[in-house]
């Protein structure tokens, strides 16, 4: 077991859900695969999906829904499988 950071390559605004009325993509504690979408990064009104990157258990989000983010910032951590 090793801890992995999920890092955004993009600056912008982080969202945990697809629309304001949708449920969160994932909750802390959930099992994820490498291509599980954990959130969206909005850059200049365009949305990019952020995926877990490795399979494992999502440990915690370090950024709240709607927070501004910088490139290289850790969005969440996960324990790999």
């Amino acid at each position, binding site marked *: 077991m090793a801890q992995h950071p999920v890092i955004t390559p993009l600056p912008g605004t982080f969202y945990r859900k697809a629309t304001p009325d949708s449920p969160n993509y994932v909750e802390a504690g959930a099992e994820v695969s490498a291509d599980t979408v954990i959130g969206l990064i909005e850059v*200049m009104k365009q949305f990019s999906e952020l995926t877990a990157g490795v399979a494992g258990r999502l440990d915690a989000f370090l950024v709240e829904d709607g927070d501004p983010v910088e490139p290289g910032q850790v969005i969440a951590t996960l324990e790999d499988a």
Partner: protein
Amino acid sequence: MTQGIGKLLIANRGEIAVRIIRAAKALGIPTVAACSEADVDSLAALLADEVHILGPARADKSYLNVEALLGALKATGANAVHPGYGFLSENAEFAEAVLAAGAIFVGPSPETIRRMGDKAEARRTAQAAGVPVVPGSPGELFDVESALKAAESVGFPLLIKASAGGGGRGIRLAENPQQLSEEFPRSQREAQAAFGNGAVYLERFIGKARHIEVQVLGDGTHAVHLFERECSLQRRRQKIFEEAPSPALDAQQREALCASAVRLTEALGYQGAGTLEYLYDDATGEFFFIEMNTRIQVEHPVSELVTGIDLVQAMLRIAGGEPLGLQQSDIRLNGAALQMRLNAEDPARDFFPSPGLVQALNWPQGEGVRVDSHLYEGYRVPPYYDSLLAKLIVHGRDRNEALARARWAVEQTTLTGMASTLSLHGELLEQPWLHSADFHTGTLETWLAERRSGGEA
């Protein structure tokens, strides 16, 4: 003088905030830049007489935050608000709230904003003023059966549009009854999700339409037009390259089009600057009103260059209580003007957003060249808002001279630190179809797709 406006709050950001400050300064009106925490180093904040911070970067906490804006009015003693474009510029509730706070809203009345913001109502208003509209359903539709029935008179192909939509969003195409049955419920859901209102209507789709729009100014009783702009070159329904006048119209068509716009503007008792958008069918020479934007537009400078009228100053004067002071015969069409939008998007990566730090920056200069921008060297373009960086605007005695100046302007521009659409304009200006003005609203996307596949070959 603009007796009414003592101090102007600018409820916007970017190049348009700078543009509004420039107009206010010319009229001797002190300005307040109302900005987000992300924009405290913006050019607008540097140029304004005062800065008021609305809230965090997110637009819903700052530029869309009505309470924060009303608080800014109170805190700064400003007695007027210019909303620019986008954000709250076409929000009738905001305009109402500004008026209720005892301040001036630089724009038309909340009633007019609401009326023209409801696309179906706008259409009925246009028809009543004798302005031709695209064949469409008589009103809003709520189920597939009535949509199929309405489609019989509208004809295919048709568009399903959200009543509360705008900026090209909430629009779906159906080429036959089966597609309409499939797409109709999707459009309703999308409209509900995007605009909080599921009402949709149908409109004939004109395949090779040109997008032509008329600039108007009104003082509540009297209205004039400032001729038309053509904005057919669009990507994902976002305008990229605009010009005035439209190269597609002859003098007689121009007169008929612009006169129809003035009729509708006067019928509304319109106050301020506005734009009536039309589709023009090259094949038949027919034009159809589609919607009115009750605000200043991004491409307003081309109209300023061909008429010599400062639209933003005119808006401030009218909002301050002055009469228009212009007769239609005072407004002459002089030469041709083009505008190229520089966006922080990478044309080599499918227009992926490219915010960043402005390193080297050099704007073109010379006869007939204007740049509207909020950039400066060392400025960090934030990722939170739209990607418009600058507008290169050129004017010539005729379209050919304007095109030559456009090439010069692109060549003389340096912008490093981020990808932009500058190089795209350089390529665009070499296209024979651009020079012959042989284009419609689908041309740019077709060209981009060919260019992409050509690049891979």
